[in-house]
C-alpha cells in the first residue's frame, strides 16, 4: 500500500471533492466530515511518503505505468515532501477553524464551497508533487480557478478584485505556458528531469534563456513580487475569512516552490545564477519589494490589508534569499517558505476569529480585545512575534539564515532591508497590540443590543483550538528548526547547489 502514497495524496482529496459536491445536494451535514477525512488521509500519506523519501532517496511514481519522458511521473524528494506535509496540515487546521463560519456564510452552497476547498488543496498538492512541466500548468490552473471562485465570494469589492486577480493570474499562467512551450521546442520533452538532461548539451542557448525569463515573469506575477503585486491586497482583504486564511498562507509559497523547483531541477543553479546575469537585478527587486511592502503595510488601517502587504514583504524575503545564490541564502529561503506559511496561517486565523466576533477588521474596531478575547490575542501576539523574528518563534531562524546568506554574498542592501523591515514589523504589530491592549472595550459595533458586553466573549472553541495549535507549532518549529534544516532542507538544496557552484 505504501507504494501508492504519491497517488493517494492527490486522488483522495479529488474524489472527496466530487462526493462532497453530491453530498451538498443530498445531505449537507456530510460535507465537513468527508472533507476532513480526505485531508487527514492525504496528510498521513504525505508523512508516510516523507518517511520513504528519507529512507531510500527520491521516489519516482510512474503515472499509468509509463516511463517518465512518455508518461507523467511524480517526483518526490526532500524539498516537496516537507511542503506536501505543510499544505495538508494548513488545510486541515483551516478547515476545522472555519467549520461554523463557513456553514453560516455559505448556507445552501456549502457543498460547492467544500468541493472548491478540496480542489484548491488538490491543485496545490499536485503542483508540489508533479515532475512534469505541463501537468504543473494544469494544476496551477485548477488551484487558481478555485482560488478566484473562493475569493470572489466576499461582498462589495470582492467581485472586482477577484476579477483583477483572474486577469493577472491568467497572464502569469499563460506566460508560464509559453515558457514551457519554448522549452518544449528546444528539448522536445516535458519531463523536468529529462529536460535537465538535454539542456546542457544544447548549443543555441537563446531560446532557453527566453523560456527562463518567460517562466520567471509568469511566476513573479503569480507570487505577487513587488511591482506585480497589485492584485494581492484587494483579493485577500475583501475575501471571506474561510477562503482568505486558506489561500493567503499557501498560494504565494507554492509559486515560490515552483521557482525553486525550476531553478534547482530544470535549469540547474549555475545556468540560473551565473549565465543569466539577472541574479543581481532580482536581488534588488526583492530589496525594493521588502522596503515598499513594509511602507505600504504601515499605511493601512485595516488588519487584513496590512497582513496582505506583509505577505508581499515575505515574498521579497524568500525571492531575495533564494537569489543570493549561496547555501545559507537558499536554506533560509526554503525554511522561510515553511515558517511563513504557518505564520500567515496563525495571523489570518486570529484575524478571522476576531472578525467572527467583531464583524469589522478596521483598527478602531479592535479596541479592548485583550480583555475580551485573551487567547485569540495571545495567539495573534505569537504570530506577530514570529513575523517580526523574535527568537523562540520560527521567524527568527529563517531570518538568521537569510541574514547570514546576505552577509556571505556581500549583498548588504538585502541585509539592511531585512533589518529595516523587521523594525517596521515591530511598529506595525505593536500598533495593533497597543490598540487592543490599551483602549477600553468600546462596544460601538454592538450599539443596538444593550447587553453586548456580557454576550461578547471568546471566539468559538473550534476556531480557537486550531489557532492555539498553530501558535504552538510556530514555537515548536522554532526550537526544532535545526532538525528541519539538517533532515529536510539541506539534502534538498545542497546536492544540486554543490554540483554546479
Amino acid at each position, binding site marked *: 500500500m505504501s507504494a501508492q502514497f504519491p497517488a493517494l495524496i492527490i486522488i483522495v482529496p479529488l474524489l472527496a471533492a466530487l462526493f462532497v459536491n453530491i453530498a451538498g445536494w443530498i445531505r449537507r451535514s456530510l460535507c465537513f466530515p468527508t472533507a476532513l477525512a480526505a485531508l487527514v488521509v492525504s496528510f498521513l500519506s504525505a508523512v508516510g511518503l516523507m518517511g520513504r523519501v528519507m529512507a531510500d532517496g527520491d521516489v519516482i511514481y510512474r503515472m499509468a505505468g509509463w516511463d517518465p519522458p512518455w508518461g507523467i511521473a511524480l517526483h518526490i524528494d526532500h524539498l516537496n515532501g516537507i511542503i506536501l506535509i505543510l499544505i495538508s496540515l494548513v488545510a486541515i487546521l483551516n478547515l476545522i477553524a472555519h467549520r461554523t463560519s463557513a456553514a453560516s456564510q455559505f448556507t445552501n452552497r456549502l457543498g460547492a464551497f467544500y468541493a472548491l476547498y478540496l480542489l484548491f488543496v488538490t491543485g496545490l498538492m499536485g503542483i508540489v508533487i508533479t515532475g512534469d512541466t505541463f501537468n504543473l500548468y494544469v494544476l496551477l490552473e485548477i488551484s487558481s480557478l478555485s482560488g478566484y471562485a473562493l475569493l470572489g465570494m466576499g461582498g462589495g469589492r470582492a467581485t472586482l478584485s477577484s476579477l483583477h486577480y483572474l486577469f493577472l493570474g491568467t497572464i502569469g499562467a499563460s506566460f508560464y505556458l509559453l515558457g514551457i512551450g519554448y522549452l518544449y521546442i528546444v528539448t522536445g520533452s516535458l519531463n523536468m528531469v529529462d529536460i535537465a538532461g538535454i539542456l546542457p548539451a544544447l548549443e543555441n542557448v537563446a531560446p532557453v534563456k527566453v523560456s527562463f525569463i518567460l517562466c520567471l515573469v509568469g511566476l513573479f506575477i503569480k507570487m505577487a513580487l513587488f511591482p506585480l503585486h497589485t492584485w494581492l491586497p484587494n483579493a485577500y482583504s475583501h475575501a471571506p475569512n474561510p477562503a482568505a486564511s486558506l489561500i493567503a498562507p499557501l498560494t504565494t509559497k507554492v509559486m515560490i516552490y515552483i521557482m525553486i523547483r525550476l531553478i534547482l531541477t530544470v535549469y540547474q543553479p549555475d545556468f540560473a545564477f551565473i549565465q543569466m546575469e539577472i541574479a543581481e537585478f532580482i536581488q534588488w527587486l526583492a530589496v525594493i519589494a521588502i522596503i515598499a511592502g513594509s511602507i505600504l503595510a504601515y499605511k493601512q488601517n485595516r488588519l487584513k490589508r496590512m497582513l496582505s502587504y506583509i505577505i508581499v514583504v515575505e515574498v521579497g524575503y524568500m525571492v531575495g534569499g533564494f537569489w543570493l545564490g549561496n547555501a545559507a541564502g537558499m536554506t533560509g529561503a526554503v525554511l522561510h517558505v515553511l515558517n511563513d506559511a504557518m505564520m500567515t496561517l496563525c495571523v489570518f486565523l486570529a484575524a478571522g476569529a476576531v472578525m467572527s466576533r467583531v464583524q469589522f477588521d478596521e483598527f478602531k474596531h479592535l479596541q479592548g480585545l485583550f480583555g475580551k478575547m485573551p487567547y485569540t490575542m495571545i495567539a495573534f501576539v505569537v504570530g506577530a512575534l514570529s513575523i517580526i*523574528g*523574535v527568537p523562540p518563534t520560527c521567524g527568527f531562524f529563517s531570518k538568521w539564515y537569510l541574514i547570514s546568506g546576505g552577509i556571505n554574498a556581500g549583498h548588504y542592501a538585502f541585509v539592511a532591508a531585512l533589518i529595516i523591515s523587521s523594525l517596521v514589523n515591530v511598529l506595525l504589530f505593536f500598533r495593533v497590540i497597543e490598540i487592543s491592549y490599551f483602549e477600553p472595550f468600546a462596544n460601538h459595533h454592538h450599539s443596538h443590543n444593550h447587553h453586548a458586553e456580557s454576550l461578547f466573549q471568546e471566539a468559538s472553541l473550534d476556531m480557537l483550538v486550531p489557532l492555539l495549535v498553530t501558535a504552538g507549532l510556530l514555537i515548536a518549529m522554532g526550537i526544532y528548526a535545526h532538525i528541519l534544516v539538517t533532515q529536510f532542507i539541506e539534502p534538498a538544496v545542497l546536492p544540486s547547489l554543490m554540483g554546479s557552484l
Partner: protein
Amino acid sequence: MITIISIKPLIAILVSLLVIPILASSRKPNVREAWTFAAALIKFGIIASMVPAVLAGHTLELTIVPFFEGIDFKLRVDAFGLLFALVSSFLWIVTSAYSIGYMRGLDEHSQTRYFCFFAAALSATVGVAFSANLLTMYIFYEILSLSTYPLVTHHQDPEARSSGRKYLLYIMGGSIGLVLPAMVAVYLMTGTLDFASGGIFSGGLAFAQALPLLLMFVFGFSKAAVMPMHAWLPAAMVAPTPVSALLHAVAVVKVGVFCVFRVITGLFGPDLLQALDFGTLLCVIAAITILVSSLIALSQDNLKRRLAFSTIGQLSYIVLGAALLSKSGMTGGMLHIAMHAFGKITLFFCAGAIVVATGIKNISEMVGIGKQMPLTMAAFFIGSLSVIGLPPCGGFISKWHLAIGTIEAEQFTMLAVLLISSLLNAAYFLPIVYRAFFCTEAESMFENQFKEAPGWCLAPLLATAVISVLLFFYPQPFLTLSQLAVSRILGG
C-alpha cells in the same frame, strides 16, 4: 575544573514559568501570593544548591536542543552567572512580599496578570544568567523585554502607552537593529558563539571589523542604558514601584549590563581589547554616561526619576569595571552588580512606601517626612550610603575594588571620574535625607497625620537595608564568586 551535566539550571529557569498557569487559575489573592512566594523560595533554593559546586570550581552545563551548526540551546552555570542569578532570585522573594503590600495598598487592577508576567520576567532573567552562548542569551533577552512590556504599561493609561512605546522602540530596536546583525557577523567569522574564557576571536580581528561590532553590541543591548540608548529608563518609571524596583534596579538593567560584560569578556576577550586599545574607548563611553546621568539626576524633582538617572550612572560603573580589563576592576564591576542591586532596591522600596503611605512623589514635598516615617527614611539613608559607596555599606567594597582597578590599569582619569561621580551621588541623595530629618518646625509640611507604611512594605524595606550593611562585613559569597570568575577570565 570538571563540567557537570545537570538539569538544575533548566529547573531553576522553568520553576517560575511552571507556576504561571497555577497563578492564572487561582481565584483567591492569598492563594496566588502564596504560590508566588513558594516559587520564589524554590527558585532561590535550587540556585543556592549550585553554589558549593561552583565554588569548588566546577561548572554545570546542559545542552537542550541544537540551533545551528556550532550553536545550540545550551545552559552553563559559571561563577559570574551564578552571582547574578543569586542576587535576582533572592530579591524576587523580597519584592514579591513588597508587591503584595504595594498592590493591596493601592488596590491596583488585574493583579494576576501582574504576578504572572513578573514570574515570566524572572525566569528570563535567570535564563540570561545561565546562558552558555550569545544566541541563548539573546533569546532570553527578547523574552525578558516582551514579558516586561505589560508590566511597564500596567496602568494602561495614555501616559503608560507612550512610555511603553518608547520602551519597546529602544529595546526591540536596539536588539533587532544592532545586536542581530552583529551576532550573525560574529557567527560567520568564528563559527561559534560560545563564551570562551579568552574570547573566541582566536585569529585576532582587524580594527575595521572589531570597532563596529563592539559598538553594535554595547549600544545594541540598550537595556544597559549606555548614554544615547538610556531614554527608555526614566520613561519606564511610570510602572508601579515594585516593577521599577526589581526590574529597573535589578533584573532588566542588570541583564543589559550582564550581556555587555559577557560580550566584552566572553566574545572579544581582554587581551584582544587590550591589543586594539578599545579599553580606553569603552571607559570614556562609560565615564560620559556616569557624569552626565549624575548631573541630570541632580535636577530631577520626581524621586523615582532621580533614582532612575542614578541607576543609569551606577550601571556604567559596571561597564567601566569591565572596560578597565584589570583584575580588581572586573571584580569591582561584578561586585557592584550585587551591591548596587541591594542598595538601589532599598531606595525604590522607600519611594514606593512613601507613595503608599502619603501619596507624595516629588522630593520638594518631602521636607520633614522623617518624623512621620522614621524607619522608611532610615532605610533610605542606608540605601543611599550603599549607592554612594560609603564605608558602613556594601557599596563601598565594590567602589573600592573599582578604584584599585583604575590604578592597576593606569587609567587615572577614570579614578578622578569615579571620585567625582561618588561626590555627585552624595550631592543628590543626602539633601533628601537631611531635609527629611533635620528641618525646623516651620518648614515641616506634615502635621503628623501620616503614619508608617503598611507592614508588608516595611519588612522587605528594612531587610534589604540590613543586608546591604551586612554585605560590607561579610561580602564572602559574592566576593569569592567574582574573584573566581575574574581569575578564570583573566587567567584564561
